[in-house]
Structures are given as structure tokens and as C-alpha cells.
């Protein structure tokens, strides 16, 4: 089967799966039981994975149909609007392939995992329908060959996250969180939409490759300056990838079932922003000051999220903030121009964060839905596989070599330092320490020390079924070996080769001259040393405080540190309340917005409507007034006529008087 038919199948199958399950899922599930309803959606995702792999291999290797520039497949002209003609087409090149790997693999694993996780929910057919819809949207976004289609994928992904977060819609908090997610995403989408319009105004076309080429070629004399275009596009990325200040929705998104959190809010959707900036790298590299902004926001989000993760008690929220932090890393990388590093971190983070989330799902599943870490502990013996895989995930994310996390994170910090963004590098290292610390805190509170599990639940804590543990193991493999497979030798590993054609143009534009020595030693070794030291420092302090094996958590020392000086108390409270962003948003938009809306509604009713009715009553009163002169008595009428006669005669005499 030629690639031209294979590629369209990738997004087509999931949408067919969604349609089928949405229409027949309910009947199937009632009549033929759960598995019958789940076979189709899960089967389709597995098929998509297979097709994706068939496509990915030649794409990464730049083999014949793809070549370095990638393959274009056009289905039909979507919007033939005069000068603008937007067609529904797909473009697959190395970058797309990289994303495909992450999306389809984790997608498949999450689908399998969900079979187990959602085993006792009565509306799983709807869950799988939405998951398939999500897969369609994400794949459409990744494969799209023009900006409008990316935007379409953007919105559809937003919709599917809305429906999945709010899956348990009878829970009011879930419905609110879903709405919040969608609206905050929409704020970002506004920026992205304006960016697309600016691109159209500048280049006249929305095809990604052509528009980027034209934008770079026109350079300074673009109608809309490139910096503004870049910032607008980044605005879209910020919304989707929950960067500061649009990050408020991600923690609340944890209301959704855990597989959703794993798939959407860890591995795939949140990476869309990174993919977008990477895809638009020529645009960003020719708008240097926009890149500084990206780096700044990225690294700030990283440290902000990490600080909040310190004090969170809900296991999924810790992971959510950790995701925020890692995304901050990726944007920092993009900001400093280390595109390949960013994509590398995207892939590795996708795997081990997916792993961590699924692990947390398995933990929650085992303690019968309990998500608060204070009511866990001492589980490492009861759920050994989950514990083992979670340990691997934690080490990976902490950035301990030789696991995947180390390679991708170190790559980013290295590139940042070499590109001269020393402040980014410095904050990056601090965040690395913090990451290692709070991850171990999580491990300690969940698995080690004495068990704080609810006595009713404690006896039948058990390891999850094979559908859940198999994906964990499968995910653990890339978490360990991905780094080594793709990252070595440092600086121009396999991935760098694959993605070279995509980012070649940017490198020429940026034309960075690498700094080769630092303190007399080769720069790479020094940086690696520092980052490993950072990771170890975090890990050990975590180990010390939150113990290992059956050692109890040193709760008193933790409280001492927290309660110590006034500053640390403020920090603790700030971190606990997510630096009050929710409250600020609530005040700014809900209260004030509500007041403005109420005022406008009052204004509409009384002023605008008032004037209309006012005119009516004035006219009617005038009528009423004039009506009084009709007294009913003949004499008054006669007098009226006489006066009329006099006025008429007077005026005529005046006219006559004038010399004519």
C-alpha cells in the first residue's frame, strides 16, 4: 500500500472508531457486554500504531518517498476562498515521525491500560469513543500540512480534553474543571488564530512549508513584523502546553480519569505547543527577541511549577506540576534554539511521565481511589511491579544517567549554556535539583515508611490486573533505553541526524559559535558533571527526608523546615496555594467579569431599551396632551377656528406686506 493511502488512514481510523462507538457503543455494551464495546476502539488504536510505525521508519531515515523535505498528501481543498485556498492535506517529515512515535505508542498503551482501569465504570463505551476522538484530533494536529488544519486539530484536541476531563459529568468539580480547561485553552487559541491571520496577511498562503519559507525570505519587510507573528503563535502554544500564565487549568484537569491525565495531560496534548514552536522554528529563529521571551516564560514556568510540586499532597497534582515544570524545560530549550534537544526531551518525557501517571493510576486503583499521599505509605511490598516501574520513572525524571531523562535534560542545559543563556542554564540546574527532590518525596510518601492507608482498605490492597501492569513494563523500557539508543554520542546522536533537515535552516540563521572550554576543561564533561551532581543532590536530600524501604518519613524534620523562619512559612503556604493564581483569576475574571456583564445587562435593559420605550411613551403622552384640547364644547372649537383664521390672515398680510 503506497504511503499516500497509508498516511490518511492514521487520522481516519480513530474518527471512524469514534463514530462507530458513539453510535453503537451504548447498545453493544448493554447487549454484549463491556469487551464487545471496547474491541473496536482499542483495536483501531493498535492498527494505527502499526501503520504509524510503518510510516515512521522511512520518514526518520529520509528514505525515498519522504526524502529530507517530507511527503505531502492532499485529500481535497477544504476552503477554496478566492485568494486563500486551504486544503485538507498531511505532511510527514522527521519531526512528524518523532511525534507520531510518542503519540501512537503512548496512545495504544493508555487504551490497553484503560480497559483495566475503567473496568467497573458503566459508560466506558463513551470513554473509549472520546479517547478515539482525542487520538484523531492529536494525529490531525501533528500530520496537518497547513496552519488552519493545525488550528482545527488544536480546537478538537481542546474539545476532547473537555469531554474527557468532564467524563464523570455528574461530579460538579469535574464539569467546572472541564469548562475551565476549554476556556483557558481558548484564550491561547485566540493568540494562535491571530498568528495564523498574520501569516496569511504576510504570505498569502497557509501551507506551513510555503508560508515559513516566504516569511523568512521576506524578513524585515513583512506586513506584520515577525516578532509579533512569532509571539502570537507562541501564545497558542502557551495555552495548550499550560505555560505561565495559562497554566491554571492543568492541575484542575486531574479531575479526569487517570489514563486521560496520562495520555493527554502528560504525553501528548501538552506537547502540542512544543511541536508547534518546533514546526515554526524558522519563524522563531528569525525573530530572536521572541525566542528570548519563549525561553524566559519556559524556564520561569519550570521553576514556578517545581516550587508548587514541593508541597502538594495529591499524587496526581504533584505529577501535573512536574509535567508543567518539564514543559517549561522544553520551551526553555526551544527558546535558546536547542530544537532537537527540546524534541528529545519531549519524547523521553512523554514516556517516563506517561509511565509515572499510569503508575499513580495503578496506586490509586489499588488503594480504592484514594489520591491523597498522606493516606498512603508502605505499599512497596504490596504492589511490587508498580513500585519497581515507578522507581524507574522517578530516576529517569530525576536525570540520573544512563536513563532517558538525563540525556534529554542534560542536552537542554548544555545547549542553553553553550548558546550563552547562562541564566537559563542556572535556573535549569536548580529546577533539576528540585525535580529530583519532590519526585523522591512522592516515592517516599507513597511507597515507603509505615502504612497510613485507611484500615478498611488496607487488607485488600492488591497489584492491578495484567492490562494495567503490562503497559507499565512496556513504558519502563523506553524510559531506560531511549536516552542511550537515540542520545549517544552526546551532541549528534541518531535523533540529531534524523531531525537535521527540519532544523537546518534555523541553525544557519542562528549560526551559533560553540563555546568549547570552561574552566580549562572540555565544556561537555563539566556540564554533565554539574547536572549529575544536581540530580544526585536532590535525590539524596529526598532520600534523607522521605526514607527508603521501611524507614519512616522524617515528618518532624520536614515540619521543622517548613515552620522555620517567617520566609520559609510564607514560601510553604504560597506553594501549597499554587501561589494564589486560581484566586487571582477568580477575582479578575469571574468576579469583575461577572460585575461587568451584569452592568452591561442592566445597561441593555434600562438604557438602550429604555430609550426605545421612552420614545414610545413620549409620543403617547404628547398624544394624550393634545387630546385635552378636544373639550367637547362647540364654542371652544369655534374660538379655535377664529384664532386659526386670525393667525392665517396675519401671516398672509405679513407675506403681502413684503415688497415682492
Amino acid at each position, binding site marked *: 500500500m503506497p504511503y499516500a493511502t497509508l498516511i490518511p488512514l492514521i487520522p481516519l481510523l480513530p474518527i471512524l472508531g469514534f463514530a462507530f462507538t458513539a453510535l453503537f457503543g451504548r447498545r453493544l455494551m448493554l447487549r454484549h457486554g463491556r469487551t464487545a464495546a471496547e474491541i473496536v476502539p482499542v483495536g483501531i488504536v493498535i492498527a494505527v500504531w502499526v501503520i504509524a510505525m510503518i510510516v515512521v521508519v522511512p520518514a526518520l531515515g529520509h528514505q525515498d518517498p519522504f526524502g529530507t523535505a517530507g511527503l505531502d498528501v492532499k485529500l481535497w481543498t477544504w476552503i477554496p476562498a478566492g485568494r486563500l485556498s486551504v486544503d485538507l492535506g498531511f505532511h510527514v517529515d522527521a519531526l512528524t515521525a518523532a511525534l507520531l512515535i510518542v503519540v501512537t505508542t503512548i496512545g495504544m498503551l493508555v487504551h490497553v491500560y484503560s480497559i483495566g482501569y475503567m473496568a467497573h465504570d458503566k459508560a466506558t463505551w463513551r470513554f473509549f469513543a472520546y479517547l478515539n476522538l482525542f487520538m484523531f484530533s492529536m494525529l490531525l494536529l501533528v500530520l496537518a500540512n497547513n496552519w488552519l488544519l493545525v488550528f482545527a486539530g488544536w480546537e478538537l484536541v481542546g474539545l476532547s480534553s473537555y469531554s474527557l476531563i468532564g467524563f464523570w459529568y455528574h461530579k460538579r468539580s469535574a464539569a467546572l474543571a472541564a469548562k475551565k480547561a476549554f476556556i483557558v485553552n481558548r484564550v491561547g487559541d485566540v493568540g494562535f488564530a491571530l498568528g495564523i491571520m498574520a501569516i496569511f496577511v504576510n504570505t498569502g498562503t497557509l501551507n506551513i512549508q510555503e508560508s515559513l519559507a516566504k516569511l523568512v525570505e521576506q524578513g524585515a519587510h513583512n506586513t506584520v513584523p515577525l516578532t509579533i507573528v512569532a509571539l502570537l503563535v507562541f501564545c497558542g502554544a502557551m495555552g495548550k502546553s499550560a505555560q505561565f500564565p495559562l497554566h491554571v487549568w492543568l492541575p484542575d484537569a486531574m479531575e479526569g480519569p487517570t489514563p486521560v491525565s496520562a495520555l493527554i495531560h502528560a504525553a501528548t496534548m501538552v506537547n502540542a505547543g512544543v511541536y508547534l514552536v518546533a514546526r515554526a522554528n524558522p519563524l522563531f529563529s528569525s525573530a530572536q527577541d521572541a525566542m528570548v521571551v519563549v525561553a524566559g516564560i519556559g524556564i520561569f514556568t519550570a521553576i514556578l511549577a517545581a516550587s508548587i510540586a514541593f508541597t502538594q499532597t495529591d499524587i496526581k497534582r504533584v505529577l501535573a506540576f512536574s509535567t508543567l515544570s518539564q514543559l517549561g524545560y522544553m520551551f526553555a530549550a526551544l527558546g535558546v534554539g536547542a530544537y532537537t534537544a527540546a524534541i528529545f526531551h519531549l519524547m523521553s518525557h512523554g514516556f517516563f511521565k506517561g509511565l509515572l501517571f499510569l503508575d499513580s493510576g495503578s496506586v490509586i486503583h489499588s488503594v480504592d481511589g484514594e489520591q491523597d499521599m498522606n493516606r498512603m505509605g508502605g505499599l512497596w511490598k504490596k504492589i511490587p511491579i508498580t513500585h519497581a516501574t515507578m522507581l524507574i520513572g522517578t530516576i529517569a525524571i530525576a536525570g540520573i544517567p544512563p536513563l532517558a531523562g538525563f540525556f534529554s535534560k542534560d542536552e537542554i542545559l548544555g545547549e542553553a549554556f553553550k548558546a550563552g543563556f547562562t541564566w537559563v542554564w542556572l535556573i535549569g540546574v536548580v529546577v533539576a535539583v528540585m525535580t529530583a527532590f519532590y519526585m523522591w518525596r512522592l516515592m517516599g510518601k507513597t511507597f515507603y515508611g509505615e502504612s497510613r492507608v485507611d484500615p478498611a482498605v488496607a487488607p485488600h490492597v492488591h497489584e492491578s490486573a495484567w492490562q494495567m501492569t503490562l503497559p507499565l513494563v512496556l513504558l519502563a523500557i523506553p524510559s531506560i533505553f531511549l536516552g542511550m539508543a537515540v542520545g549517544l554520542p552526546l551532541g549528534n546522536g541518531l535523533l540529531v541526524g534524523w531531525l537535521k533537515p527540519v532544523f537546518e535552516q534555523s541553525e544557519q540563521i542562528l549560526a551559533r559559535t560553540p563555546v568549547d572550554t570552561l574552566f580549562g576543561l572540555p565544556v561537555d564533561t563539566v556540564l554533565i558533571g554539574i547536572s549529575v551532581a544536581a540530580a544526585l543532590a536532590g535525590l539524596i536530600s529526598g532520600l534523607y527526608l522521605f526514607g527508603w524501604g521501611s524507614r519512616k518519613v522524617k515528618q518532624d524534620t520536614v515540619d521543622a523546615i517548613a515552620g522555620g523562619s517567617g520566609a520559609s512559612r510564607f514560601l510553604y503556604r504560597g506553594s501549597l496555594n499554587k501561589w494564589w493564581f486560581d484566586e487571582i483569576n477568580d477575582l479578575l475574571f469571574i468576579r469583575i467579569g461577572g460585575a461587568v456583564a451584569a452592568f452591561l445587562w442592566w445597561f441593555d435593559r434600562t438604557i438602550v431599551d429604555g430609550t426605545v420605550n421612552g420614545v*414610545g411613551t413620549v*409620543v*403617547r403622552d*404628547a*398624544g*394624550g396632551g*393634545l*387630546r385635552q*384640547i*378636544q373639550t*367637547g364644547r*362647540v364654542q*371652544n*372649537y*369655534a374660538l*379655535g*377656528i377664529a*384664532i*386659526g*383664521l386670525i393667525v*392665517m*390672515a396675519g*401671516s*398672509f*398680510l405679513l*407675506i*403681502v*406686506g413684503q415688497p*415682492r
Partner: protein
Amino acid sequence: MTFSDTSAMAPFIAAVLVSAAVILVDLVWPGRKTAALTATFVGLAIVAALTVAVGQSGTTAFGGSYRVDALTTFLDLLFVAIAALTAAFAPDYLGERGLPVAEFNAVLVFAMAGAMLIAGAADLIVLFLGLELMVLPGYLLAGYHKTDGFSTEGAIKYFLLGSFSSAIFLFGIAFMYGMTGTTRIDAVAANLTAVVAGTAPFSPGLGLGLAFLMTGVAFKIAAVPFHYWTPDAYQGSPTPVTGYLSVGPKVGAFAVIIRLFAGALLPMAAQWNIAVMVLAALTMTLGNLVALTQDNVKRTLAYSSIAHTGYMLVGFAAFAAGQIQGLEGLLYYGAAYAFMNLGAFAVIGAIQRKTGVTSNLSTFAGLVRREPALAWLMFLFLLSLTGIPPTAGFFGKFYIITAAVQAGKTDAWLYVLAVLAVLNAAAAAFYYLRIVVYMFMRDPDTETSVAAHGRLVWTGLAVTTVMTIVLGLFPGVLLDAVATAAKAIG
């Protein structure tokens, strides 16, 4: 009194004979309605035939004091139609109240004869007499239901103020006669052109004469501020008579204006057109405003007829400012207004057939359930009065506004009048639709029994409905007649 004179006057003479015949028929068969009615309708048919026959000749008679031209024929036919329709609608209403139909028809035909005389008058005195012959029977008809306090009160008011204004009108004619020395309209016109051309002195006497004539005529068409009699006279008199009064004497009065101002006083147009415009503006606005607050349908339609006078005056003002379309518009509007107003009053008359049924809005509540046919017909007439297409009222307003807009080029004030007319139409929509609201959207409070209506009423309603729609959808029918009529005078 040559043969040609009598032949020219044939329609007028026939009319008089008809009323005489009706009286005689009533003498022979006292109290028998059918006899009187057949005499009337046959007579009117003869008069119409004669009008059409005479119309072709286009001669003058009686030494130039009566002329027959396209305008005369057009107006005569309209007056015959109005008289016929009123005669059709009256019997049901009168019979219920024990009032004789014969005298009613006789007096009605006399009034029609007067109107026909005005239509053809070429002499001021003939014009005055025609006016008197039209108006006197009007007073009598207004007071026809003599045992009803309201009817006589309406009549006395109408009479007193009417004769007061006739005296003023006559005084105006006296001054004109004094200034120009003749009563022949064309001679007066010739003399006035001399005055306007500066050869003869433009004296205050002439100004005063103009003022008196204007007041007299303004009273007859119920222009504001001389309109006081209309609401009381219309509400008081029996409904078929109100229908007639709102149409017959009004169109007759406009015939006086056309013959007098367009005929004799045209050279002075620049002087009196300002007054016409002011009158038009006042009449439209006050008519509509006060109508907004009425709760008696007959009184509402009284004020609405004042407003319609205002719209017709706009047409006349456009004509005076030099646009022939103005006069055509006026004539077309006159015809359209006649049919829709008669139709509306016919419906009210039919509803008020039972004695004691007042014409307040409440009697209209839920009419569509009791008498759907009447309600839908009333709805059509009200739409036409508002000026919503595809009705006659709409095309009438369209014609008048076109003329005003065209005349606007010469005299900018007419643009203002056009816009004012349009805004007034919008305001008018409120009180017309208020009646529709009562008819369609309110449920009837008192379960009054449904009175069967005579065949005559239905035929009359059919005629008015057809004319309201035809004049709206296919105006071509009347357009050329109106054009030739206007050319005759212009």
C-alpha cells in the same frame, strides 16, 4: 340653456331626479326598503353611465360656469361609487334602529349631486353652491338617528361650525370677487397672473381673501387647527354615515381645493404653499399623535382620517411646488383612501348592527373567534390604512412620497415633509395594530351573539376589498385615469 348645456349637466340633473324618484317611490310604497334601494341603485347606475358618456365630450356649459373634463369624470365616478357603497352599508344598520331608508338615500344622493357640481365647477359661486349642496345633507345625515343624543349632538356641532366656516369661505369669495371683478375661475386665474407678474398691485385685501378661503376650505377637509368637529361628528353620527362623512365630504372638499387653488389661485402658489405645508405637517402629526391614545375605534378612525388628510395635503403641496405627480398622487390617494376607509367603517357598522353595541375597543376583543371573515377583512383594511404593501394604502403613500421627494428638488422643505409623513405612518401603525391586537390576540369578554349580515353588506365589503387589493397590486388600472385627470387641471 341650450341642448349642449343640459347634456353637459346630464349627470347632475340625473342625480337630482334620482333623489326625487326615491322620495316619490317612498310616497307610493311607504316604508318598503327594497323599493327605495332598487330605485337608488338603478338611479346611481344611470348617473354613472351618463358621467362616462358625457366625460368623453370635454365641453363647458352654462356660459363657462360648469366644465366637463377628465378630472370631473374621475371625481364624479368616485362620488357615485362612494354614494353607492354608503347606500349599500346603511340599510342593515338603519333598519335595526327603525330609521327610514328612503329619506336617507334621497338626502345622500343630494349630497352626491353637490359633490358632482363641485367637481365640474368653473365659477366661484357654483363652487360655493356645490359645496353647500354637499355639506347641508351631510349635517342632516349626521343627525339622522334623531332619537340618539350623540347623533344630534354631533350634528349640531358639525352644523354650527360648518356654517360658521361657510360664512368665512363666502367672505373670502367676496373679497376675491372684489379684487378681480369676476367669479369665473379661469378669469380669476388670468387676473391673478397679472397681479403676480407685478402689473397689478398685490394688495392686503387679496391676502385677506386668501386667508379666509384657506380657512374655510381647511375646515371642510378637517385640517389641523380647524379639525375640532371631526372626532365628535364622526363618533356621534350613525356608523354608515361616519363612513360616508370620512370619505364623501372630505374628497369633495379636496375637489374644492383642486378647483379653487389649483384652478383659480395657482399663480399665487408661492404665497399659499407655505401655509399648505404647515397645515400638512400639523394635520399629519396631531392626527396620528392623538389617535394613539383613543380607546374608541370610531374616534380613532376619526383622528386617522385627519392624519390621512395630512398625507393628501403633502401631495397637494408637492403639486403646488411644481410636480404634476403631486396632484396625481392626491387623486390616487383619494380613491384608495375612499375604498379602504369605507370598508373599515362597513365592518364597524356590521359589528354594531345590534343596538347598544358601542364602538369601543372592547367590543373588538376576540372578534376573530366570533366573526372570522369580518376580522380578517378588518385586518386587510387596517394594513392598507397603515400603508403596508401590497395594499392600496401603500401605493397611495408611495405615490405621494415619490411626488414629495421629486418636489424636494425645488423646495427642500418637501424632503422634510416626506420624512415626516413616513415617520407618521410608523406611529400610525401602532394604533391600527392595536385594533388588530384586540381582534386577534385577546379573548372576547362578552359572548355577544353573531348577527347575520345582509347580502348588500357582503357585496359592498367585497367591492371595497377587491378595490383595496387591486389598487395595491395592479395600480396601472387607475394610473392613466389619474394622469389624464391631473393634466386636465395642471
